[in-house]
């Protein structure tokens, strides 16, 4: 069974601070996706990274895929209250199946 461990599990920061969320596995994935989930809703895709070492930026969010395609990170610059939510990484292997990480719950306060 492929496992994806995310850290930290919980993060409470003030507006304007920077943060990094990590997603680690012992397995190699064909691609890795990051989702954000708000209370009462399903996860929504933020980004997909495919190539080892790939870096993608989405406004204040920077995603990186590890060189060996086993790990990934999400960095948020100058966090805002609107960034509050549950962040999930998910690795793709076969048959379009995803293995989801344990999640990082982020709270950004004023």
């Amino acid at each position: 069974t492929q496992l994806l461990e995310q850290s930290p599990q919980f993060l409470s920061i003030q507006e304007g601070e920077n943060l990094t969320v990590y997603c680690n596995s012992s397995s190699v994935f064909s691609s890795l996706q990051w989702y954000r989930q708000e209370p009462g809703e399903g996860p929504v895709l933020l980004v997909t990274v495919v190539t080892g070492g790939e870096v993608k930026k989405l406004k204040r969010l920077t995603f990186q895929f590890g060189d060996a395609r086993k790990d990934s990170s999400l960095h948020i610059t100058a966090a805002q209250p609107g960034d509050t939510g549950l962040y999930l990484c998910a690795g793709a292997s076969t048959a379009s199946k995803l293995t989801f990480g344990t999640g990082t719950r982020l709270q950004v306060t004023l």
Partner: protein
Amino acid sequence: DAGITQSPRYKITETGRQVTLMCHQTWSHSYMFWYRQDLGHGLRLIYYSAAADITDKGEVPDGYVVSRSKTENFPLTLESATRSQTSVYFCASTAAGLRETQYFGPGTRLLVL
């Protein structure tokens, strides 16, 4: 409406009862999935389907049954509900391919008493 919908959104049932959760998507996506989300476990795959009449087990299939007679529908049945099946259930769909986005429904919150 276009998209992926789930019904009911909330369900309370008793131990031993049969419960069916419905999922419907309008994109004609070939793949559909059922997940359960519990604190500390993230999202765990219960069953998935690559096409109509093709289903396969995921990580936690015990106690669940699925069917897919039509591409757009993927119902999940709890044959005899147990308290451990209290959870939030999400249905998702995607077009074929490892880089494709999975689109999630809004979830069904199930409480088994």
